[in-house]
């Protein structure tokens, strides 16, 4: 595995939740495409443009299959963030709406829906956590049953590593005739995804070993057909006259302008890479469990419930920034801060935490190395 990631020869990379390192095969796929098949898509009559279009649409099909969707329901966006903004702008939200999110949510979900609710004068509800820092499912059910037009929630927390039962939430939301929007930015990298019962699901290419600048948004087709365009421009139009414009149907309506073509090809290769290494996702969990156990033994305070996927966040008597800087001197990359979840950190009453997150390329040695460095750090600060 590590030979696909030359960068890991000198770096102990434990920040995959922020962005995953890309395997050589992703660079090679983009390189070959760029040198031999590149052209704009959906426009040219010439053969090269047809080849590029085929590759681009092939990526859409692979992305759809990856999450159990269909190509007619896949919109390419710039990122999860852009997908959430698209949804917050286009889903019907009025003064009468009840919009629900949770304390676990990343700012990229939390803020667009908070702002949409503020603009419309809608009710904005933030689901709380249990004492253990897990999503409080009993409260969630209660709040959803009071009425729910949109529930926007993460499937896998980028801080606590908790997996959220979105299937169950979807049932409750649909009983209220609401829509469930799932932030799959972390989930897509660590779990097998099935969006059959999910109205909208978004993830970013760069967190699944692919390029930045491309994201995938699944919108269930009956929902998609009711949404108005989000951005206007080329590609998304049907007919333009001086007086007015009509728009295309399906995903094309939401893809204004030249899309991220080369990135789509890189993403396709990245998704194949993940699909071929499903077995290693089990190992990722073991690594996090192993890491958590070692952290507990050195008296770190762990955030959230014990069952974790992908990451573990914690505090030590040393400030998170100082920990991260100490580890950096040992060529170990971890994240320190609030990880784009300020409401969560406020609720926990901590200013910042340290997060260790793993990818398919990490090993037990990486965990041993970071634990040894953390011990040295606590010693150096003499706390």
């Amino acid at each position, binding site marked *: 595995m590590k030979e696909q990631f030359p960068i890991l020869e000198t770096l102990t990379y434990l920040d995959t939740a922020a962005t995953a390192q890309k395997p050589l095969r992703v660079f090679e796929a983009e390189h070959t495409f760029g040198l031999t098949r590149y052209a704009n898509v959906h426009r040219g009559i010439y053969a090269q443009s047809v080849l590029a279009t085929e590759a681009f649409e092939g990526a859409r099909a692979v992305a759809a299959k990856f999450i159990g969707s269909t190509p007619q329901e896949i919109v390419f966006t710039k990122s999860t963030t852009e997908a959430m903004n698209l949804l917050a702008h286009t889903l019907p939200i009025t003064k009468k709406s009840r919009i629900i999110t949770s304390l676990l949510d990343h700012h990229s979900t939390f803020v667009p829906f908070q702002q949409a609710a503020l603009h419309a004068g809608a009710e904005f509800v933030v689901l709380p956590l249990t004492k253990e820092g897990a999503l409080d499912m009993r409260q969630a059910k209660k709040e959803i049953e009071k009425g729910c037009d949109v529930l926007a929630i993460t499937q896998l927390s980028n801080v606590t590593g908790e997996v959220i039962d979105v299937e169950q939430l979807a049932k409750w939301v649909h009983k209220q005739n609401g829509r469930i929007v799932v932030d799959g930015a972390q989930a897509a990298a660590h779990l097998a995804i099935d969006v059959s019962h999910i109205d909208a699901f978004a993830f970013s290419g760069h967190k699944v070993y692919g390029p930045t600048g491309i994201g995938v948004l699944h919108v269930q087709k009956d929902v998609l057909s009711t949404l108005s365009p989000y951005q206007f421009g080329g590609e998304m139009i049907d007919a333009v006259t001086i007086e007015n414009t009509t728009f295309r149907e399906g995903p094309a309506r939401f893809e204004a302008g030249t899309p991220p073509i080369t990135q789509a090809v890189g993403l396709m290769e990245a998704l194949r890479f993940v699909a071929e290494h499903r077995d290693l996702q089990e190992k990722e969990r073991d690594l996090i469990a192993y890491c958590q156990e070692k952290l507990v033994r050195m008296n770190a305070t762990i955030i959230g419930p014990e069952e974790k996927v992908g990451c573990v966040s914690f505090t030590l008597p040393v*400030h*998170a*920034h*100082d920990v991260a*800087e100490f580890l950096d001197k040992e060529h170990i990359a971890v994240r320190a801060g609030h990880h784009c979840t*300020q409401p969560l*950190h406020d609720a926990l009453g*901590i200013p910042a935490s340290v997060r260790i997150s793993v990818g398919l390329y990490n090993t037990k040695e990486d965990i041993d190395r970071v634990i040894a460095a953390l011990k040295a*750090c606590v010693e*150096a600060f003499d706390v």
Partner: protein
Amino acid sequence: MYKEHIMDHYKHPRNNAALKNPTISHSEKNPSCGDSITVDISITDNVIDAIGFTGEGCAISMAAASMLFEDMQSMSVDDVLTLTREDMLEMIGIPLTTMRVKCGMLALHAVKKALYTYKARQGEDV
């Protein structure tokens, strides 16, 4: 990891206490990392005669506050207001990455805001 002087100021911060009757008090927060500081300044005839800070943060932000406050003793309000980012970086004395520069500047930022508020109150042009 950090140089001796940083660790010394971090572990034994100078002026690390709230003042009883400060002339001016001001709080600042760095939302990106949660560091927070409250500065209390007592001023007589435009000269700083007592200062104290309380707060929570990383070694850089707390050591920077301690060093700044040590230097500020008996400086005039106007002299403190001429302190620049470069002066502060020199005081800290180790290279900081962009993210950490914010930590290093938190105390100076809070002090300057407090002093501008003080001067505005005095009815002076600022």
